[in-house]
Each structure stands twice: as C-alpha cells, then as structure tokens.
C-alpha cells in the first residue's frame, strides 16, 4: 500500500527585512504509512509545525514535493481535504460560542449532518460541556474540542499538532486510546507531532525525528529505540575490587570493545554479545554477579539523535541541535540502519 503522506526535499525559508533568512525546512523527507499512528518529533524550532502547515496548504514552500493520498498538495488539496482532519497548534475559537455551536458552524460549512456533532462531542468526552461557552473551557477542554472538530469529517488521515497539550493524565490516556482505536480499528492514519516522548513511545507505531528542518531518523518506534540500545552492557561483581582487572581483560580481549568504570560497575560498549562478556571474564577467573543490557527509552534516544541533551550548567538553546545530514544523503532508518 502506498504511503498516505509522502514528503521529499521540502524547503521553507522565512525572510524578513533586515534579518537573516531562516531555513525552517531544509530538504525534509517523510513518509507516513497507512493505518498507523505516526509520531513526528523534533526539538523546538525543528520544523514540525511548519511541515504540517505546509502539508495543509496554510503556508507556501520554497521547494520540494508533497503528496497526500497520492495527490500532489497543495495544488490538489481541495480534492483530498474532505478525507483529512487536522488540528494545527492550539486553535482558539470564538469565546462566546458554545462548543456545540463551534462545531455546528464548521459542520454546516462542509455540509456535515449536525448529528455528527454530538457523536464527536461524545467521542472526545465533551458531551456534558457542549452547551458551555468556549470562554469557560480549560486548555484541555479546548484541545478536546479541537480534536472533535478534526474528527467531524470522519477523516481517513488525522493530523494533530501536540494533541496532548493541556490534557490531564486521564485525558491523555483517553486520547491515546481514541487515536489507537481510530488507527487500528478504523484504519485511520494518524500523524501526531508531540513533545511528550513517553506518550509518543506508548502511542505511536512509527515515527520521524527531525532536527533543523531535516529528517534525522524514521522507522518503527521499537526499532529506533532498539537500534540505539542493546550494545551497552552493565556488569557488576560481588567484589568491587575486581573491576580494575576486569577492565583490562575485556579491553584486551576484543577489538572495538570499550570499557568504562562507573561507580561500582563496568559499562561495556561494543561487545559482540552478552555471552562473550561472561565467557571472557570466566576464562580469566572473574565471575560477575550481574549482567544487564542497558535499555534506552525514547527520551534518551531523542536527545542523542537530536544533540539536545543538556550539559551540566549549560542550558540548551532553541535551535541548538545536532547538524542534520547533508541534503542528498539519506537519513538513518531504523529498519535499515545507517544508510
């Protein structure tokens, strides 16, 4: 099945009088497969929202190509917009309109039956607040209303920019279940940009990480995390005094193996497999008491890939990130490794 979204070489430069041009998108590539929840991650200012805006025809681009459902956008966007539901950033509604009226006006503009309004209000958990004016809504309730309006069209593609913004834990859980149900039971393709990495890890099937307007990595979430874990092992001994000798043994036994003492354990990187460590140490008369594979979470992978891990005493500035691969060179993919 062809990807629902295909973006290649997308460029967007913001130009302002008397200021340096800013490349918000610098040859971005992205693909989103059908029926998946796809995470779209990147540090602040990496071009996520710009990409979504460009995809939805809200802003013009300076190069590259985008296709949605096989149709070139934005030129053919009117032909496919009926199949797309979207929330870009946090939309503010007319404050004196009720939640229901807000949705009714939108539904009316697209010829959608008003019964659908009540369905989506129920789906996002706003049934009992439907008659309240938006002015009295909390940030989380507004976010739910925004998602409700995206669902009005029964979309085949749902594009959500930070959908968990302002939601309480129950709201986040509800939203996660809703989006997964839509993707896995209803066949809706969901593209979610988010900063909540643990949420993305739980919610998404696949993801694209961008930095400085370019793709850093994409693939299945589990594959990306696994691709950046696994090679690091933690070794402990009953007698911490054996750490020094164990370091010498392991370092001299294998090419490309690096060993570091860290408090009362050894951190081994580059070992071919865990069994090699136990065997090598046992051959030298050293018996370990604990051997664990260091599993990284998405946050540490994200920080590593985007180069935004904070250093002690050095705050990370917006836009400070690892330089992306040059245009033309493919980014890393989790399934294929370094290309």
């Amino acid at each position, binding site marked *: 099945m062809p990807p629902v979204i295909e973006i290649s070489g997308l460029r967007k430069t913001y130009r302002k009088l008397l200021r340096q041009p800013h490349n918000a998108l610098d040859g971005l590539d992205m693909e989103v497969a059908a029926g998946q929840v796809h995470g779209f991650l990147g540090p602040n200012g990496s071009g996520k929202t710009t990409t979504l805006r460009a995809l*939805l025809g809200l802003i013009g681009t300076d190069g590259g190509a985008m296709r949605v459902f096989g149709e070139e956008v934005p030129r053919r966007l009117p032909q496919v917009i009926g199949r797309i539901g979207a929330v870009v950033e946090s939309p503010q509604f007319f404050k004196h309109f009720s939640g229901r009226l807000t949705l009714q006006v939108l539904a009316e503009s697209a010829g959608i039956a008003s019964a659908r309004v009540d369905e989506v209000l129920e789906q996002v958990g706003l049934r009992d607040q439907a008659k309240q004016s938006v002015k009295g809504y909390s940030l989380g309730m507004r976010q739910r209303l925004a998602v409700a309006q995206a669902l009005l069209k029964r979309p085949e593609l749902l594009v959500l920019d930070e959908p968990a913004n302002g939601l309480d834990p129950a709201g986040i859980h509800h939203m996660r279940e809703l989006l997964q149900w839509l993707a896995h039971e209803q066949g809706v393709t969901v593209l979610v940009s988010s900063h909540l990495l643990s949420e993305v890890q739980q919610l998404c099937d696949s993801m694209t990480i961008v930095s400085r307007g370019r793709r850093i990595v994409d693939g299945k979430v589990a594959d990306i995390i696994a691709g950046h874990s696994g090679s690091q092992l933690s070794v402990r001994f009953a007698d911490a005094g054996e750490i020094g000798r164990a370091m010498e043994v392991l370092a001299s036994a294998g090419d490309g193996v690096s060993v570091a003492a860290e408090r009362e354990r050894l951190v081994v990187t580059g070992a071919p497999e865990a069994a090699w460590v136990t065997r090598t140490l046992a051959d030298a008369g050293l018996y370990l008491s604990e051997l664990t594979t260091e599993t990284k979470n998405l946050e540490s992978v994200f920080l590593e890939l985007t180069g935004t891990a904070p250093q002690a005493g050095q705050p990370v500035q917006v836009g400070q990130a690892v330089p992306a691969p040059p245009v033309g060179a493919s980014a890393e993919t989790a399934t294929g490794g370094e290309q």
Partner: protein
Amino acid sequence: MTLFRAELHRIARRRLSLLFGIFAVGGLLLITAIMWFNSSTGPSEADLAAAQQMADDANAQYEDCAADERYFENDPDYSWVADDPWYGEMPHEQACAEMFLVGAEAEDYIYVYTFQFDEEGVFLLIGVAIVTGLLSMLLAASAIGAEWSSGGMANLLVWHPNRMKVWGAKLAAALALCAVAVVAMLVLAFALLYLTAAVRGDTGTLNAAWWEDTLARLGRTAVMALGMTVIGSALAMLGRHTAIAGGVIVGYLTVGELLVSFVRFGVNSIKYPDLLSLYTWIGAWIEGRMELEYWDPVTGLPDQLVLTATHAGLVLGAIMLVFAALATWSFAKRDAA
C-alpha cells in the same frame, strides 16, 4: 453555498452583531422620540394666550420707554443705557426701539417646530442608512479580524483550502448581512418617522417625484453602505486584526480629514481642495449632484465644478476596488499561519 450559510451564521451569532443591532435600533428609537416630543402641529389656545400676553407686555414696555425721556435714568435695571455713549447719541425713541421690541406679536413668543417628513425625513433616512453601513463595516472588519487573530482562519482553511472560495463566502455573507440590515433599518425608520410626522407633524406630499428622488438617494446610500462593508472586510483581511482595520478607519476619519482641512485652507494652488475630501465625493454620490465653487483671486470671477453621482461612483468604486484587490492578492499569496 454551505460555506456562505455557515459564514452568515457565524457573523449573525457573534455577540458584537447583537450589540450593534441593539445600538442601531436604540438609536433609531431615540431619534424618533426626540422628533415626537419636539414636533407639534401648532400651538394650543393656552400657548397662544400666554404668547399674546408676553407680546402685550413688551409693547407696553416700549411705549412706557418712548413716553418717558428719563426712563433709563429712573430704572436701575437700565441705568447703564443712559451712561452708554452709543445709546447716548441716539434719539431717545430709537434707543427704546433698540432695547425693546417694537410692535411685538404673539408669534414672536411662540416656537413651534413641525416635523416635515417629506423634507427632513429623507435626511434622517439617509443618516440611518449611513450609520447602518458604518456598523456593518465595523462588524465585517471585526468578524474577519477576530478570525485572523484567534487562529480561526487557519482552522477554517484546513477545512476549505480554496482561499478564494473562503474570501468570497466571507465577503458575500458580510454584504448579505449589510443589505438586510440596511433595508430592515430603512423600513423601520420609515415606519417610525412617518408615524411621528402623521401624529405630531406633517407628512407633506409624497408624490411620484418625491418617491423617485428619495428612492434614488436611498438606493445610492445603500450601495455605499455595501461598499463600506467591502472596505471594512478588505482592511481586516490586509491587517489580519480587528484593531488594525478599526485603526485605519478611525485614523482616516480623524487625522486624514484633518490633513485634508489643512490642505484646504493652507494650499492655494489647488483650485478645488474639497476634491481631496472623501466627504465631498460621498455627498455627491448620495445627492446625485454637487457644485464646487472657485473664486479667482485675480479676476474675482467665479468658476464652478459639477460633480455627478457618476463621477462620485467612479471615484468611490475605484477606492473600494483597490482595497478589495489588495485584500484578495494578500489572502491568496501570504502564508496563513
């Protein structure tokens, strides 16, 4: 069509629409009440008797003054007249005539205002149409400006990416609302003012010529109200904020016209400086004809420029089209978020 209906719904349901509606109807009721209480078909018997008494008193005072050469010296209230050199050089009778009414009549003490619908009513109806147009202009600017500043416009474009269709629907909805408001307000104003004139004043002669002239003037005013709505919408589309659109409108009406006044009085090289004022063209458009006069400072001979509704329509229409075209271009080309 669905988008147009939704836009109409959106504007009509705004709180500002309700407030402006109340303001417009309230203002009309106030004007009607003022006309109702000020207008009268004639004085009552009691009013006439009181006025006659006042006239008689005035005549008696003059006669007392004329009969007594030392009237001013003897009356402490008028002793200053005797000392005033201007009055002192006059014959005494003339000074009395200067101080008091000569031959006063009851009519001199009666003020009767009778509301003439066929004459004054037309001006009031034109005023109602202009104010309704001004409110429509602000309402249209506010509706579009608020959508831009709230992010609602970007949200709408996610539903309807064809920007020309969105702009067309918004403009059509604002114009439809303006047209309905102007017609409704004119019908209501006509009914209230005609009733006032019928009961408390004089309806005058509403013959075929009156209807032809009045409908032509009101029709042109209604068209101008629609044009104002287009300009309000266009300014909000260009500025992307209600405050910017409102600022430009208020700025022109105050500072812009003030500058025109300075030019009018300060620059002699312009033969007809009134042409710089928008009000001149608006007046010519509504009235159908306006004459501007120029007196040659050297020869002292007059010259005249006649502005017709056609001239004014071309100028005002061109201004509206420029704003509409700029707004269309801006909406089509600029990033929406």
